[in-house]
């Protein structure tokens, strides 16, 4: 038998997904309807799925295969992004959709699953390859994995992988415990912890920008970089998820996972190859190099915030404590900012300022790398705007890269002004970018874990965040400390001012 497919043509063909079945727990939930099924349909539309492909949805609601197909048809048509809904493609895709009612807490449901999977494998030629996707409450991850293992479904003819969504634990100890429970059934290499931020095109483009070009990497260290700011701002509030958010908070919900992963991507050493473990090793090394704050330093190097009521655009906006399901005395952080340092040769002494929050003026995620000023003012002090060079990597809403540099103003005399050179991902490449879930689902089915988070990375992130969390938990904050629609608490500005910096206005 040939070891490799002789028909491959990597210059022209897209990456192909081998035949497999995707088992989705929580198939009646929002994530499945809004993200997972639209992403899978889109992969079918792009001809990425193999002929032998199937989806088996599981949730507690009784439903027939046909009812599930109809429900998913409506969801896909509604939530498909930048893409047409094609009845013919749907008809072919829907043939591979199946459903069974089952409760994760019920051991018998896993025996039923085994029977159903065998039928699908025989009928759809899925070769025994199964991707389990747990789109459920995090508290059910370990139970589901145990059930899958007990029914003998974690091994079989083909590969078996499991995908879980954040949060991966609520602190270091619970993250470790979750990993241990998962490892009783699945090997770490078969556990795919999804962080949808890493699936975004621009986050991947950071790697291309840094390691595909020769001109930036030599400047990418303490000698040339003055500071780095990472901002992930949301203009919306908790949108009816007050109960959930009250238990999480901005530090846990955003910094522990998404933003530390972005920081790792920005600051990691070049990986020797673009192999999953090689890239993840470097990310992990970087996360382990972030200086862990001592309890005494936490309040000086981090800021917790919570939005209060305000009027925005002529409308009254409720404060966090006035949101439904939120305790009137809640100490939950809807804003979190921190100053991190990386203890390695490349980054020693360079501050990484990270902030995230809800009800900020606009929805924007971007990374700003500020370079050192020119060492000597050749043109004298003419009252020019001589702000230092700035490289901005925009992640959303308009993915792209901008470089700010100084240029001579036209006319007599040597007066300088900053200009911006923009690369806009969306308008430079008219092609539609895949959604993060398309990218990540494709990767999981192919077995490429580069953009997934590994256990050691999760633990390293908790190691950075937990000391901050511990101090915050024992401190009583005077909340609310920022108005909805503003750039966060004054204390965050002061944190930077103490080091001679200021937050950018994105």
């Amino acid at each position: 038998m040939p070891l490799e497919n002789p028909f491959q043509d990597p210059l022209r063909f897209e990456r192909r997904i081998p035949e497999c079945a995707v088992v989705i727990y929580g198939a009646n939930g929002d994530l499945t309807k809004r993200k997972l099924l639209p992403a899978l349909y889109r992969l079918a539309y792009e001809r990425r799925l193999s002929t032998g492909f199937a989806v088996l949805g599981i949730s507690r609601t009784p439903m027939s295969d046909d009812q599930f197909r109809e429900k998913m048809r409506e969801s896909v048509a509604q939530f498909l992004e930048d893409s047409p809904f094609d009845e013919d493609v749907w008809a072919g895709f829907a043939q591979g959709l199946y459903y069974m009612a089952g409760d994760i807490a019920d051991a018998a449901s896993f025996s039923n699953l085994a029977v159903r999977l065998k039928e699908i494998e025989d009928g759809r030629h899925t070769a025994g390859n199964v991707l389990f996707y747990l789109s459920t409450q995090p508290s059910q991850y370990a139970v589901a994995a145990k059930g899958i293992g007990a029914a003998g479904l974690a091994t079989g003819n083909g590969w078996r992988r499991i995908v879980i969504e954040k949060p991966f634990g609520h602190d270091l100890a619970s993250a470790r415990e979750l990993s241990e429970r998962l490892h009783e059934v699945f090997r770490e290499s078969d556990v795919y912890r999804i962080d949808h931020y890493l699936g975004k095109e621009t986050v991947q483009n950071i790697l291309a920008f840094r390691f595909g070009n020769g001109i930036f990497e030599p400047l990418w260290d303490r000698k040339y970089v003055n500071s780095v700011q990472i901002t992930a701002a949301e203009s919306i509030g908790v949108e009816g998820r007050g109960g959930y958010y009250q238990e999480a908070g901005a530090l846990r919900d955003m910094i522990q996972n998404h933003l530390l992963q972005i920081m790792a991507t920005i600051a990691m050493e070049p990986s020797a190859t673009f192999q999953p473990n090689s890239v993840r090793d470097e990310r992990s090394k970087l996360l382990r190099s972030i200086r862990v704050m001592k309890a005494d330093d936490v309040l000086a190097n981090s800021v917790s915030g919570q939005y209060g009521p305000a009027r925005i655009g002529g409308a009254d906006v409720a404060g966090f404590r006035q949101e439904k399901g939120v305790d009137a005395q809640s100490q939950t952080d809807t804003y979190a900012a921190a100053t991190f340092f990386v203890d390695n040769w490349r980054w020693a002494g360079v501050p990484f300022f990270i902030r995230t929050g809800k009800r900020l003026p606009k929805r924007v995620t971007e990374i700003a790398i500020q370079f050192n000023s020119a060492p000597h003012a050749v043109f004298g002090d003419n009252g020019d705007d001589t702000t230092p060079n700035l490289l901005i990597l925009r992640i959303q809403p308009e993915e792209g890269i901008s470089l700010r540099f100084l240029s001579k103003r036209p006319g007599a005399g040597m007066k300088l002004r900053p200009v911006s050179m923009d690369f806009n991902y969306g308008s430079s490449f008219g092609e539609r970018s895949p959604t993060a879930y398309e990218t990540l689902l494709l990767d999981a089915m192919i077995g490429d874990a580069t953009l997934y988070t590994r256990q050691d990375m999760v633990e390293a992130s908790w190691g950075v965040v937990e000391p901050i969390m511990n101090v915050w938990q024992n401190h009583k904050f005077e909340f609310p400390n920022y108005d909805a629609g503003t750039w966060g608490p004054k204390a965050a500005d002061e944190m930077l001012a103490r080091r001679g910096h200021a937050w950018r206005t994105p």
Partner: protein
Amino acid sequence: MSTTIQPERILRELAELWVSLGKDSEHGQASGVLRACAMTLITLAEETEDPTDVWSTMAALMPEHPSRAMVIRVRESAARELASRVFSQCWMPFGHRRQICCEQIEISASDASLPDLAAVVLPLTVPDLPVILWCRSARVFGLPDFSQIAKIAQKLLLDSASFPNSAEVLVKIGRRSRAGQVLGDLAWTRITRIRELISQIFESRKYLARLNEIAEVKISFGGSVPPTAAYYLAAWLLDCLESAGAHPRLSWESAPGDPPGQLSRIELTGAAEDGLHIAICASGDRERPCGDVQIDSLASHTVFPPDNDYVLLREELSIPGRDPVYEKSLTRAVALAAAENQ
């Protein structure tokens, strides 16, 4: 029509165009203009062709492959005639405030002035970026002075499906390729999605293990003689199968009811009666081509992208350099066509 063109004048006009676009922006008519360029794209077309078709393809390509676009419209004439005009094309991406603009140059030339054309075109190419030449005319491709213009380009694109004799054009393309010219043939691009479909079938280890069983490759086509696409597909299939240890027989079948040049059906069949049988049937039309795949008892339906110049060029412009799979298949296709026409 004038008989000379000064490249410097065209470049000056281009520069003025940018200044005027910039002024428009300062006067608030647009919130800034972004100049984008990734290549020089030269199109050679017959003057009798409707230029709107060519320019609308260029326009569609611009967001993804921003370029300085030149369209050279060639007329059959013994008089030496050359003329040019310069303009820009701008578009405002959805939800953005800044226009993106690309330069466009249109040159009219007669057959007799083709020897002068290379000297005009060369200074107009954008420095340090690839030059791609898309020749839409079989007649111009056959003119003796065509080679001088082709030399400017890093890659030459043509569509062998528009040539009257498939075997003859394959020989000509093969000769150019052997001489070192990087080529792209839209007839080859057109079969990418079918090739991808076949490749995807053998991503399955089950079918990969049965690849050696394949004893026959049968290609059905519209018209009476195999089109270049059929030769390409056969060449690629045979090369791939042989590299995996299979040595199938190739057979052709004419499907008289189908439009000439169309690939109608591809079958890969095992030797045993109950052996592997894969069939791909083309259906739909150029706007919505489809493929029905039958692998033993498993069937699926696939919708391909529309078969138009924009889609084909978009793929080819993404590969500015050599394409080893194409070059290997071209060599084999030339041999198959020669054998078929003996």
